[in-house]
Structure formats: structure tokens, C-alpha cells
């Protein structure tokens, strides 16, 4: 009896029933929202007459659902490939990622026509990026047969990443338009690539490889100053050098969000590798010191902080400049974004206005990428935002679980570091949108519009699934 049970259990896992079962509701949800979108658009365009109109004459046809049907078909193909080739990899990550990237496509479809400048093809472009991302996800799974070569060539990766980003940033400095939101992109014909999205993966690989080799030395601590043990500087040297170069590059072109992200990754990986809270506290002290220096030296940092200090209730009295140059503060870029975003979120209430029925995508600047939280907050309400935060938390939970179960320090640090990218990025952009910290332009994983970001996120998920697959194979003695 017991043996029978065990074999049926294995059979269940081999065919990934859990994943198939979990993919069901996201599929229904995405179809439902896609179905709602044309109705909502009609409703908004004919607000006077449509309210009492019968719904039967307006029902969308299958033709209108094509983008999401295409997306779901791609998801099913990936699921089948996973079932055949990677039956033992984690089954909970992919359904959540499918829901979120599908919602990302829907948001781009919905935001495209409304944003300024309007881009009716935004949704189809995002669908293309997500399809490429799913392909890259499978390529990552197949290519990483063993993690060995990722670890062995760590300095090569590091140099490659820094060169790529250096070229882009040099390009940006040459153009000398640091206020343009696309100043950190590399253009290849019609495609614009953002190398910094890939640099964060490379940095995690480098940190994981370096820390796993020097773990014992770094965890032991170097020389002591009373009760505080300082980390051994000789072993930390390459890490600090890498960190320093990345930070200088990003601060040089005013990418505060990415600098914050990279520093956050550094601290979490140092903690994961050394298990010492004192390093993290020391790192945070250094961070606040650097932040204070930056605040007093650079005017653009001060401008970002000024937006956090906005007193929303007292909005009539926001002014800047003096004499004839006086303008209302929220008529300016950052202040306007934050203020409009907060108004949108609060007007969504608890249940939201309904998908496609809000005004955030037309009224909040850059609603399709940086301010996507405000669109979600308006159209899905507090309930929807909480559900999404829940999905991100589960994503983090699964990632750290894969890290805990992985064999070998390098795999553990790699999975932990990649997972913390998602955590820190979501935290920075959500808190920025809610006016808790200065707003910085980094994408919300899977939901913001953007090709490089989607592809980079799929690479991360691919590495995580591969690690979980390797762990399960080793546990059963098959590798």
C-alpha cells in the first residue's frame, strides 16, 4: 500500500499536475480581463449613452481576445517543455510568473492608446517581448546543465558586464541629455536594449561565485576593533571594487534606483554569505553617510527628496521659484508624477474602478513603466494591490526555498541573490510610487512595460528553476 502511494506520488510529480492545476485560474483571469477591455473602452468613449445599453450587442468576439490567447498558447507550450525535460523543477514559480507577465501584457495593451505620446502597438510589442522572454527562459534552462561555468568564469562575466554598461553610459554622456528617460539604452536598429537590466544578474553571479570561494574567510572576520569585527579587506577587495565601479557608473548618469538596487543586492548577499548582521548594519551606516553626502552635493538628489516631502493635503500652496518665475510645484515633472499617482490610487478605493475604466494611464506621466503601481491601484483597487503584493511575496518565498534546498554554497548564494533582486526592486518602485522614498525609474518586475526588463526577469526565473531541478535530481541520485 505504502509503495503504491509512493509511486503515484512520483507519477504526479513527474507530470507536473500541480503546475497545470495552478495555471488554470490565471488563464481564466487573463481571459476575463481581456474580455473586459473592449467593453470598458466602449463604455468610457460613450459615457452618456452606454450606461443603460444592453450588453448583448457589444460582446467582444474571439478576434478581440487574440493577444491573450496567443500568450496562453505560449505558456502551454512552455509548460509542456517543462513537463518533458525538467519534470522535477519547482512547480509554483511558473504559474505566478505566467499570471504576472500576462497581466503585464494586458496593462501594456490597456495603457498604449492612452499614454502620452500614445502608442497603440505597445501591447503587441510587450507580447512580443514576453514571447522572446519565454524563449530565453527555456534556453537558460537548457544551457545551464551545470552551474560550473557560471562560477568558473566569474571575472570574465564581471568585465563583460562592466564594458557593456560602460559603453552605454559613455553614449549617454556623449548625448548629454541626462533627463531623457532612455539615456541608458543601447540601440540596435529597432530594438533598444538596456544593459543595466542584465548587469544586475551578472553582478549576482559574480558575488555568488566570489563569496562562495571566500566564505570561510569573510565569515570569520578580519581584525577586531573591540566588539566589532571588521570584514577582512583583502578578501572583500574585488567585491568592493565591483560595487564601487557599478555605483559610480550609475550615480554618474543619475540612475539612483539602480545604484540603490545594486547596493541592496550587495548587502543581502554579504549577509547570506557571512551570516553576520553587523556587516549589514555597517553597510547601512555607510549608505546613510553616502546618501547624506549625495544629498548635500547634488541638486538632482535634493529634487527627488523634495517630492517625498510634498504635503498632499496642502497642495494649493506648492510653489517653486520666486517672483515671475513662480510655478505650482506639482506642475513639474517629479512632483506631478507623484501627485497624480497618489490621486489615482486613492480614487481607486477598495475594489478599484475596474480594468480599463481608470484615468491613471492618461493622466500620470510614464504610467506604462515607472508608475504602473498607480494604474493597478486605481483599476484593481486596494484589494488587487494586496493580491499582487501577495504574489510577489510568494515568488520571494519560493526563491528562498529553492536557495535553502540547493546543494553547494554557490547555488545557494546564486538563488538567494537572484531572488533578492525581485524583492528589492519591487520594494523600491512600490515605495517610490507611494511617496515613501524618492521615486526612481526602475521597472516593477513583469508588470512594467519594457523588453530588457522582461527578458532579464525570465532569465532569473530560468536559473531558479534550473537550480531547483538540479537539486531534485541530485537528491534522487540521478546526477
Amino acid at each position, binding site marked *: 500500500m505504502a509503495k503504491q502511494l509512493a509511486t503515484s506520488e512520483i507519477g504526479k510529480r513527474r507530470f507536473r499536475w500541480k503546475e497545470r492545476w495552478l495555471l488554470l485560474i490565471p488563464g481564466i483571469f487573463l481571459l476575463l480581463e481581456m474580455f*473586459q477591455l473592449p*467593453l470598458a473602452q466602449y463604455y468610457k468613449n460613450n459615457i452618456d449613452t452606454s450606461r443603460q445599453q444592453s450588453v448583448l450587442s457589444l460582446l467582444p468576439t474571439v478576434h478581440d481576445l487574440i493577444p491573450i490567447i496567443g500568450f496562453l498558447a505560449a505558456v502551454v507550450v512552455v509548460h509542456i517543455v517543462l513537463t518533458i525535460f525538467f519534470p522535477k523543477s519547482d512547480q509554483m514559480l511558473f504559474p*505566478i510568473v505566467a499570471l504576472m507577465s500576462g497581466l503585464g501584457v494586458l496593462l501594456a495593451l490597456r495603457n498604449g492608446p492612452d499614454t502620452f505620446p500614445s502608442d497603440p502597438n505597445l501591447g503587441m510589442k510587450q507580447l512580443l517581448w514576453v514571447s522572446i522572454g519565454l524563449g530565453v527562459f527555456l534556453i537558460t534552462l537548457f544551457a545551464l546543465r551545470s552551474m560550473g561555468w557560471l562560477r*568558473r568564469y566569474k571575472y570574465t562575466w564581471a568585465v563583460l558586464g562592466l564594458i557593456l554598461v560602460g559603453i552605454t553610459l559613455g553614449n549617454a554622456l556623449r548625448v548629454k541629455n541626462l533627463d531623457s528617460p532612455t539615456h541608458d539604452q543601447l540601440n540596435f536598429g529597432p530594438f533598444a536594449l538596456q544593459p543595466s537590466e542584465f548587469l544586475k544578474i551578472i553582478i549576482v553571479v559574480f558575488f555568488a561565485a566570489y563569496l*562562495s570561494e571566500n566564505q570561510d574567510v569573510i565569515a570569520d572576520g578580519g581584525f577586531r576593533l573591540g566588539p566589532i569585527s571588521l570584514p577582512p579587506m583583502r578578501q572583500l577587495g574585488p567585491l568592493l571594487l565591483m560595487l564601487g565601479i557599478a555605483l559610480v557608473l550609475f550615480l554618474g548618469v543619475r540612475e539612483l534606483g539602480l545604484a540603490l538596487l545594486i547596493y541592496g543586492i550587495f548587502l543581502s548577499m554579504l549577509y547570506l554569505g557571512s551570516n553576520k548582521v553587523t556587516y549589514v548594519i555597517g553597510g547601512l551606516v555607510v549608505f546613510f553617510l553616502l546618501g547624506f553626502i549625495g544629498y548635500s552635493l547634488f541638486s538632482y538628489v535634493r529634487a527627488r527628496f523634495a517630492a517625498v516631502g510634498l504635503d498632499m493635503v496642502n497642495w494649493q500652496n506648492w510653489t517653486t521659484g520666486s517672483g515671475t518665475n513662480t510655478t505650482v510645484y506639482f506642475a513639474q515633472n517629479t512632483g506631478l508624477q507623484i501627485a497624480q499617482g497618489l490621486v489615482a490610487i486613492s480614487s481607486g478605493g477598495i475594489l478599484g474602478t475596474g480594468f480599463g475604466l481608470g484615468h491613471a494611464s492618461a493622466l500620470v506621466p510614464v504610467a506604462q513603466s515607472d508608475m504602473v503601481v498607480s494604474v493597478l491601484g486605481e483599476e484593481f483597487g486596494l484589494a488587487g494591490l494586496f493580491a499582487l503584493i501577495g*504574489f510577489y511575496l510568494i515568488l520571494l518565498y519560493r526563491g528562498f526555498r529553492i536557495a535553502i534546498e540547493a546543494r553547494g*554554497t554557490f547555488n545557494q548564494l546564486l538563488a538567494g541573490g537572484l531572488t533578492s533582486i525581485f524583492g528589492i526592486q519591487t520594494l523600491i518602485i512600490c515605495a517610490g510610487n507611494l511617496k515613501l522614498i524618492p521615486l526612481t525609474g526602475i521597472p516593477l518586475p513583469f508588470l512594467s512595460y519594457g523588453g530588457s526588463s522582461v527578458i532579464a526577469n525570465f532569465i532569473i526565473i530560468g536559473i531558479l528553476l534550473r537550480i531547483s531541478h538540479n537539486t531534485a535530481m541530485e537528491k534522487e541520485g540521478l546526477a
Partner: protein
Amino acid sequence: MTLDVFLLILRLLGIVLLYLFLMQVIISITRDLRKTSVANEGALSQLPPVVGHLIVVDSGPSKIAPGTSFSLNPQTTIGRGPTNTIQISETFVSAEHTRLWFRNGVWYVQDAGSTNGTFLNNQPARDALQARVGDIIQVGFIRFKLAQ
């Protein structure tokens, strides 16, 4: 049915579906956790069995005395890092140096990406090699004999 009523129904349905999915995921997580906690209790009550030994033949430049014996589990890792089954604190041993595992009555040895290499009877073990009792396994500059 009028359009605004229909849209209201769609909106509520969307939120309900989101939370249904969240619930479904959390249920499968709790089930998973319960299963692994049962498995862990089973694993904790019995220590991994000792299926062999490594005896130091030539300690090279290290301070380990020749003749020292290390016990081997079915899955054994050797290296400088604190997570290894056999930890050797010598600079010429990499953090994760060698992997040994025992399957179907046969020992396998493989280098785990070390700097100074792993050798089985003087042959580099970059890929997994089969080892027999009495074979010489060299980890960095330390030579062991595989014993029962």
C-alpha cells in the same frame, strides 16, 4: 443586462479570481511544507549512514597526520568551506573541492570546480569517475586511500 451592471460583475469576478489563485497557491505551499517537515523528521531521527572511510596516506604540506580517518556518507563533499561534510582548512584546498557519492554499490569521485584539482589514481577527475576500495584519491596535495 445593462453594460454597467455587466462591468461591475466582471470587476468583482476578477478580484475573486485573483484571491482564489492566491488561496490555491497558499494551500499548495502549506501542503508542501507539511510534507517536507514529515520528511525532515524522518531524516533527523537517523543520521546519514557511514558507508566508507578515507584514510590519509600522504598529507603533503598540510598539518593533518597520516593515518587520520574520515567517515564517508552516501553523499560527501570535501572542501575548505564550512558547509562541507569533510572540512579541510588548508589554503590549497578550494571552498568546494571534491564530491564523492555512493550509488548501487559503486563509489563515484568528481572534482567540484577546484583550483588545484582532484585526482583518482593520478588521473584528473574533472568528470565523474568510478572508484574502488583501495584507490588513491588526491584532493589538492593531500592523498587519501578509499577504505571500507
